[in-house]
Each structure stands twice: as C-alpha cells, then as structure tokens.
C-alpha cells in the first residue's frame, strides 16, 4: 500500500485495476470521463481499454468480456445510461460470468448535463444492484467489492458516484501493483440455454432475479458500508434520526455537532435496500429525516419498510417538502434542513446589497472554429426562414449571443432527426442540423440514414474539430488514434456520408470565411439530404503561428467585430477594438469581418 492524492475517478480506476479488471470500455461524459483515461494511463498493457463509439457499444463490449469470465468495467454519465438501457435491461436477465461493474456518474445540479436523473432509480427499474460511494476513499474500496459481488451473484452491478465524488480529490491509501488481484479467465463457453435470450429463458431469469434481490437485501443488511452511526437518540421530546447516503452523508456530518445525539442510517446500497438494517434503525424512532440528492430513493424505501412492518415512524424528506426536490445538496442546504427538523432556527440571513455581478456563462473559446462555422451559415442564410438544430458538445454554446445559432438541443444525435421532423411539417423552412465529429459517430449516422431514406430535405453540418473537445479531447474513430495513443486507420466522415447515399458532401475550412459562406449557399440550395463538413482543429490542439492585431488608426470603432463574433479575445478599449494577445489564436475570422480592414496579421498553424 502507498498513499496518493487522487481524484475520485482516478480512485475508481485504480480500484478496478486492483480488482484485476481485464477490459474497460465507455464513452466520455462529464463527470465520468477520467476513469477510462486513468486506466489507459496506469493499467498494464494487457488490460483492454477503449473509447467505444457510444454507451450501448461500450456496455455490449464489456458484456462479451464478462461472458468470457473476465472482469469488465464500463463507464458513462447518467444520460449515457439511457443509450445503454436497451442492452442493460436484457443483460440483467442473461447475467454474467466474470464480474461486471457499470460505473454511471450522476450529476446533481446538474452541473454539466441535460438531466438530473438518478441511477439509483434506474437500478430499481432494471433490477441491477447499486453501490453508492460517499467519499473518494470509499469509492476506491467499493469498486473492488462491487466486482466480487457481481461475480458471486452473476449480475452486472452499478457503481454510482456523483460529481462531488468523481471530481473531489483526497489523499488515500492504494494498493501497489504487486498486490493487484490476478484473474484467470476461461474464455467463452458455448451454452445456448444460457447466453441466448428467449422468452422462456426470460421468465426463468426474472424469477431468479427477484429471488436473488430478496437475498441481496439480507446480505446488504450485513454489508459493513451500510451502517447505523449511533447517537443517543434523544433530542427534545421526540426520538429523531437521519438517513443519508453519498456525499450528503458528509454534509450531514459537517453539520452535526461533536456531541451529536442523532443516530444516522448510512445507505451504501440503495438497491436492493438493506431492509433488516433499516428496521433495526427505525425501531424506537419517532421521526426520520432522509437527506438525499436527486430522487427520494431512501425515503420511499423507508416508507415501504414502515408500512410492511407496521412501524409508526414518520418519514420526512423530499416527499414531505423537508428537503429540496431538485438541485445539488450543499453543506448549507443540509444544515438548514437539519435545523428545521430539530426545531432549531438559525439566525435569519438578511439579503445583502451586492453590486451587480456580470453573468459569466461558458463561451466558445477565442479562435474556436465552431464560431467561424456558425458565422458562415448565418451569413449565407441571412433573410431566409431557417431552423438550426443543435446537438450535444462544445457547439451547443453557439446558442449564446451574439451568434444565437442553436434553436434546439435534446440529446446526442437528436438534432438530425428533429430537423427532419420540422422539414416534414414545414417544407419552406431551410433545416440545418449541426453535429460534432464525435457525436456523429456516437449517434449521428443512424439519423442521417433516416433522413436519406425518408426523403427529408435538410443540410447536415458536421463540425469536425478532430477531437471530443467538451469532455477534454478524447480521440474517436475519425481521429485515427485510440485511447492509448496507438495510431489506427481513421474512419472518414465524408466516405461514411457518401456510402449512405449523399451525393453532395463538401469539406471546407470554416476559417476561410468567403469560401465557407459560398459553400453553404451552394450546398444548401441542393435538394434532399446534403452535408457540409467544416474541418478545422480545436484551438486547444493547434498553436497560433501569428496573432491578429487591430491597427488603431484604421479602426473606426464600429464594434462590428465585437458584436457579431463574441470572441473573448476582442475587447473594446477607449472606443476602439483591441485584441488580447494572450487569448487570440490568429484564426483571422475578425479580419474578414471588419468593414475597413483594420485587423490583420493573424495566422493559424
């Protein structure tokens, strides 16, 4: 053992390696991304690790490994679990031979997601056991225990950290490589009665799952991470307690005084719920406050236990309005709820007069090629009735002023299909769908086939910056690199589009502004489904050769550059445009915008 200062995701990765994981797959998604990256960096060469093209593919690859008796890990964020839901629901019926842990990172807040869905609820729905860590150190231990449980009970299991575990850092004790488990694997053994899902098998499996989960509820009552932290139990005239989980347990602890009287039920496996332990906790308590994030999972389980065992305990939480139903818990919100529960009031905070603060939403980087692409489309389509369907990625930020180039955004790959729906209802509207290169491979190809086959009229704009930028620059099939940096043959987006049947597919550098505008005009006027690939690398990957400068004598201060681009490097100084050279990437976009040619000198490598 040795000590390391680790991010929660790194701890999960090292925990999986310590458990002898043989294969790890997943799709990048904040806050889960660093798990696979750490395995690629720190795992032995014989651990297969891959960025799969989407979560469904990743889960299925892992299932194949687990069928072969290997230990397999899959990682994704909560929204990605929806993509993997199809194989997951069936896999739970089939089961696994080797241990299989599905890490789904939840994002209360949400800090960087479309939803606040709770994977604990998904666990209940899919009948897959859930492990819910509360600290970085616990996540490290728990992933190893989760593998053991999975293998013992032949079921995939969830490990479900949240942002404040994934992205928290802690100095923890980890195993040396010599201490890692070594897994012998048998390989896939044919048995159609086991691995081929048929209705007859499903009925049998369903019964087995229900029986196993009932057993697991008992087993989990003795799992030491589910625990009752005792207090004297007496607080005023009522006997009260708290039930909590995950990082909310830590907020609870921060708020309880040293001489705390409240017993706390800590739930590490929300499903199957450790019922017997809960009964032990509830007996003798008059009121329990459930402090949890996202869904009222523990609260519902305790209500059920009270009903089943005729316990008179009053259960409070989200369902009773004692805990906020949406958003992330904080030390503060938990403290307030505990005070109210105990009938203590904290001093009213009077709202202070604070000077107005600027809102500071994330924006496209200075020199981002997406800005140029959006601008080209905007300029080419000026005056026409359009819809710009966006998608998931950096380019969703194109919705902000002044670009205002994202009319819809639903989920990965949806923009392409939404554009078709709009076209079918209103053929007069020029329909555009913007999709990034990584998203194209994850979820864009099927939508394009759909558009082509079902005779839509729309323009697909692939914003190809040669990386998965938003989650931190992961490679994908179009980049010709694997997660471990091996060079492989790249998949050409243009060839894929042509193979689908698109006859108009043009690739252009969006930073060549005049050419880009002309291309959009030309392509958009073609009938049917056609595509433009705007290709220019993400600014984080490419260094500027020379930066642009404003010639102050020439600048007439019209602010056209500032107002139409929203480039963070362009600021107004003493009535004239000024370029912050620490930010400018020399993309030259502003040079082509200035009506008097006052900007020059930029060059992008």
């Amino acid at each position, binding site marked *: 053992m040795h000590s390391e*200062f680790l991010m929660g995701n790194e701890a999960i990765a090292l925990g999986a390696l310590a458990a002898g994981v043989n294969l790890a797959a997943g799709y990048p998604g*904040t*806050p889960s991304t660093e798990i696979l990256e750490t395995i690629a960096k720190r795992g032995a060469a014989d651990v297969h690790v891959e960025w799969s093209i989407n979560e469904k593919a990743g889960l299925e690859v892992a299932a194949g490994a687990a069928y072969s008796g290997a230990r397999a890990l899959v990682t994704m964020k909560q929204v990605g679990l929806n993509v993997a839901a199809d194989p997951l629901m069936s896999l739970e019926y089939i089961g696994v031979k080797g241990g299989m842990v599905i890490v789904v990172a939840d994002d209360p807040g949400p*800090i*960087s997601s479309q939803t606040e869905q709770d994977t604990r609820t998904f666990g209940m729905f899919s009948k897959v056991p859930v492990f819910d860590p509360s600290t970085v150190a616990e996540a490290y231990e728990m992933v190893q225990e989760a593998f053991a449980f999975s293998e013992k009970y032949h079921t995939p299991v969830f490990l479900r950290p949240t942002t*404040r575990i994934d*992205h*928290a*850092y*802690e*100095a923890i004790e980890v195993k040396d490589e010599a201490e890692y488990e070594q897994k012998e694997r048998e390989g896939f053994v044919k048995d159609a009665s086991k691995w081929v899902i048929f209705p007859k098998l499903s009925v049998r499996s369903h019964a087995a799952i229900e029986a196993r989960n009932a057993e697991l509820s008992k087993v989990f009552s003795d799992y030491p991470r589910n625990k009752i932290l005792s207090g004297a139990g007496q607080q005023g005239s009522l006997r009260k307690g708290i039930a909590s989980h995950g*990082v909310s347990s*830590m*907020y609870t*602890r*921060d*708020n309880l005084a040293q001489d705390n009287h409240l017993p706390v039920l800590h739930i590490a496996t929300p499903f199957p719920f450790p019922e017997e332990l809960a009964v032990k906790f509830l007996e003798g308590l008059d009121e329990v406050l459930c402090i949890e994030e996202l869904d009222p999972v523990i609260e519902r389980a305790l209500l059920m236990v009270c009903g089943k065992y005729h316990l008179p305990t009053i259960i409070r939480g989200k369902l009773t309005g004692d805990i906020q139903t949406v958003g992330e818990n*904080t*030390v*503060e919100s938990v*403290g307030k709820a505990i005070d109210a529960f105990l009938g203590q009031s904290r001093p009213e905070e009077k709202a202070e007069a*604070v*000077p*107005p*603060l*600027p*809102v*500071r*939403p*994330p*924006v*496209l*980087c200075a020199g981002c090629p997406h800005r140029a692409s959006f601008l080209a489309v905007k300029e080419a389509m000026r005056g026409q009735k359009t819809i710009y369907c966006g998608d998931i990625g950096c380019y969703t930020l194109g919705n*902000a*002023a*002044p670009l205002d180039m994202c009319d819809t955004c639903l989920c990965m790959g949806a923009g392409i299909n939404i554009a078709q729906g709009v076209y079918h209802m209103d053929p007069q509207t020029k329909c555009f769908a913007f999709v990034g290169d990584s998203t194209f491979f994850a979820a864009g190809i099927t939508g394009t086939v759909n558009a082509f086959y079902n005779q839509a009229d729309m323009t697909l704009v692939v914003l190809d910056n040669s990386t998965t930028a*938003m*989650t931190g620059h992961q490679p994908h099939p179009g980049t010709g690199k694997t997660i471990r940096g091996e060079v492989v043959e790249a998949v050409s987006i243009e060839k894929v589009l042509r193979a689908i049947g698109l006859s108009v597919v043009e690739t252009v550098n969006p930073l060549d502004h005049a050419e880009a505008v002309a291309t959009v005009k030309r392509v958009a006027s073609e009938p049917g489904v056609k595509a433009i690939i705007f290709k220019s690398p993400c600014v984080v990957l490419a260094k500027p050769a020379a930066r642009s400068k404003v010639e102050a004598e020439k600048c007439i201060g019209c602010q056209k550059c*500032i*107002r139409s681009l*929203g*480039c*963070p490097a*362009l*600021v*107004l100084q003493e009535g004239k445009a000024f370029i912050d050279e*620490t930010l400018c990437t020399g993309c030259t976009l502003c040079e082509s915008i200035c009506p008097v040619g006052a900007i020059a000198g930029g060059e992008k490598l």
Partner: protein
Amino acid sequence: MSTDIILCGVGGQGTILASKLIAAAAMKKGIPVKTAETIGMAQRGGSVFSHLRLGAGEGSPLIGKKRADLIIAFEPAEAVRQMPFLKEGGSVVVSSRPILPVSAMIGDATYEVESIMAYLRDKVDRLTVVDSDAAARELGSMKVLNVVLLGAAVRSGALGLSEQDILAAIHERVPARFHELNEKALAFAR
C-alpha cells in the same frame, strides 16, 4: 487545525494548478487535504472555483457558507460571487484586473469594477489587492498570475503555509524551465 480555502476565477486562468500547488504543499507537511473543483463545460470563460479543505478529516469536500478562512480570487467579480462563503473576519486575496465576459462586451450585461472593489474594501477586513497589471508588466506574463496570488496569500498569513512550502510544490509540479519565473512570481510585491 484546519483551513478552508476557496480559489475562484474565470476558466483558463490557472485556478486548478494553484489549488494543486496548495494541496501538494500541505500534503508534504502531513496535513490531510480534500478538494472539489469545477471542471467540464464551465472550463472555458465561465466562472470556476475550487474548494480546498486542509485538515478537514472526515468532512465533505465542499465548504459551507460563512466557513471559508481564505478566498483567493483571480478576478474581482468572482471574489464577490464567493463572498457568502467567507467567514467573519476571513481573508481575501484578489487580483485587481477585471475580465469582462462576452455578455458585457456586447452590451447584454454590465460590469462596474469600481463598485465591486468598493464592496470588497468595505466588507473584508483582511483584504489584499494584487496589482496584476503591474505583475504582468514586471514578470512579462499573465500566465503566472496564479503563483503571484499564492505569494500574496502566503504573506497574508491566512494560508498557513510558507513560501518555502509553496516553492517546494512548484519544483515538484512545474517543469524546470519555468522555475525562475515562478520564483519571481511568488516573490512579487514582497
């Protein structure tokens, strides 16, 4: 003893490296550290923060309101945004140079730096304003603003770490060719 510190600024300013340096310096002295930070979509141009808990033991990675001993702000408006976390009598180290968001540039928002600085002067007893423009001129780079601010935080006494502690962490985490620049930055305005 425990120290709760918040670092805040705008994505891309180097708050994360600064929090790593503090964490590394504290760990070298055997102080347990927990941190939590903003990463992901808010990385670029958005408001970012790191919570650092030195000696927190069993607690959570997030700091509660009115509990931070020290706020190190890379930008005046971001300092004010984090003020609800500062405890009574806590310290603030702030860079004087405002960074205007694009929304302010195109006229959708306002940024009144004078009233923001006046608010900080009024509310914070232990306020250190770092003249970051002067620092940039003297050091020839805005890139080491994070270390300049760490130097000021050390001298404010609220960090509980010495210049030597931070320097050791820099030597461990920053490539050798930047050591001299970082040393100058750490000593700026001493």
